[in-house]
């Protein structure tokens, strides 16, 4: 179903690479909340996230984000300042501290520098702000990545396998954090089971098709996203 106020609207959107379909033409809409996208490695999941984040163009069909047609350059320009993306195994400049990393992101997001301190505090990174990124444990590193991704207060955030290297004890705390990143959050994982239970909707990619899972536990969904 596509609501008029959908955050993401894809109409007959398909992605091809190397002569084969990564995602066959499909139509879907996402309004708000936390949406899970599951698929094994090399299933095209990361390519779909990159397409939704406007880093690549769909091969066919139309794509609207936050009310803008992003298949053209003007729509992309209009919407990019409202998006956030944290790729799988995200990179950072060698030798930077957490503060420098977030400030670097803030510059490219055209965000004033005082927002850096605010986001560091929000993600409980104030004490780790002067530590080098290379020295951080996985959960703090993810927090720093999330802070850099969301320093400009995006309306739509894409997180590609954010919890892949996070140990179980820290997962629940971070899941709470992920749900509050933006009004709409798209998060991926290799297995749908990793997303079920805390995502409002879960999609799976199988054989280049996007299928919505209907077995979504609403344990976490009682907490509204974007809070």
């Amino acid at each position, binding site marked *: 179903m596509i609501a008029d106020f959908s955050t993401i609207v894809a109409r007959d959107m398909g992605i091809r690479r190397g002569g084969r379909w990564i995602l066959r033409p499909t139509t879907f809409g996402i309004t708000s909340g936390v949406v899970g996208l599951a698929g094994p490695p090399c299933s095209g999941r990361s390519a779909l996230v990159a397409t939704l*984040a*406007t*880093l690549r163009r769909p091969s066919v069909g139309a794509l609207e984000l936050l009310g803008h047609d992003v298949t*053209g*350059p003007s729509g992309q320009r209009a919407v*990019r*300042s409202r*998006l*956030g*993306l*944290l*790729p799988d195994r*995200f*990179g*950072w*400049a*060698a*030798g*930077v501290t957490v503060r*420098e990393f977030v*400030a*670097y*992101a*803030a*510059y*490219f*997001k*055209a*965000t004033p*520098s005082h927002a850096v301190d605010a986001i560091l505090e929000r993600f409980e990174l104030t004490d780790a702000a002067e530590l080098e990124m290379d020295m951080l444990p996985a959960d703090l590193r993810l927090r720093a990545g999330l802070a*850099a*991704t969301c320093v*400009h207060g995006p309306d739509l955030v894409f997180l590609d396998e954010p919890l892949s290297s996070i140990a179980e004890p820290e997962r629940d705390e971070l899941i709470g954090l992920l749900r509050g990143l933006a009004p709409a959050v798209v998060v991926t994982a290799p297995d749908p089971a990793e997303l079920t239970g805390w995502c409002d909707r879960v999609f799976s990619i199988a054989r280049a098709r996007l299928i919505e899972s209907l077995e979504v536990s609403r344990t976490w969904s009682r907490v509204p996203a974007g809070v």
Partner: protein
Amino acid sequence: MSDLGRVLRIDARRTAPFLAVPALALLGAVAAWRALLPGVAYWDDAVAALFASVRVLGPASAALAAWVALREHRLGYLRGLSARSPALGPLLDLMLLGVVALSAYTAVAMIVVVKTLLHVEAGHPQVLGLLAGALTLLVYTVIGYLAGRAVPRVATVLAASAVTCLWGVVRPGTWTYLLPPPGVEHIHPFAGLRTELLAGQALWSFGLGALLVTCHLWVLTRRARLAVPIVAAVAVIAVTTLWIHGQQRTPLAPRAFEYSCRQWPLTVCVHPALRTALPSLEAALTPLATRLSGTPGSFTKVEHRPDNDFPRPANGVVYIHLSDLSPGYEHRAEQEIQISLLDARTCGNPARAAGVRYTALVSAWLLDEAPPRLTDLTAARDFARWAEVRRRHWLRTHYLRYHSCTLRGRDFRVV
């Protein structure tokens, strides 16, 4: 520090300037030093040495740029999804890489300039040559960076270096050796780089660099207004390529100069680029002139001539051809004068082999070399016993036989 300054400082770490600049400068300096003519301080040759350094610096700079682009790819999620122009990140990278490459090039240029100045330079500094080299180096850098962005793989770094290196040494046609960096190894004195060709080469590099950068900006931004600089860059490249193709001739042109001379005891005149050689040439050639005095081969003046100019020695003037001052140049000059004393037609005749051997004995004395082994031991022994004055006197009477390689054994037994 401003926000942009902080970003530049972080981005600069990827270019590793404190490592890259000295490493590139060392590479370029070695290449330039090897390309400079030994002992010659000639501005046109200095420009050729800079081009030689660009042929080495360029591929290294392209590899560095491809490596930086490869590492930049990991930050695409921050810089690509930017509220600012998506071109900002690549432009900052290109600016930093350009600064690194030009810093290394400036260091190389300083070394070449100082070396030329210290050796009493000749000719005039070719600023256009310096500019053409710098622009060509920037084009190499842009090519490496764009290749690294297009295919962010480690293999791209090697490929960028290999392809650009290949362009420096192998070209598809003769005229393409005039495209930057031009395939000139050495500029010998008497010739100079053509200024208009240097200007064309600088313009060609500028056009290619501008085309590559603006095309990449268009891919990133899809701004229609970029069509104007793209079309202009294509026009510049097309016009300069056609013009360079139309040249179809050597990049060198004869260069006007005034001889540098030393007047006493012998007049020795050389191209000003080799004027440091005057005292040693004077010292080396004076004994030869003394030994030949009173003979038809005597000379009082030695003149340095271009490699393609061989006038016949006459009226006491002999000619030498020196392209550089590598060790042994004084002896090479002596040998050239001595060879010019001989009649090539008769000395090359196999029937005169015996006479050639006696001539070699006399030539060895003239050149202060060890005498050759002769089968006529008597002649060799007698000649070795004679005092210097007696040998000179003997040469005055037997010069024509020496000249025509018709000396005989009994000529040495004449008192």
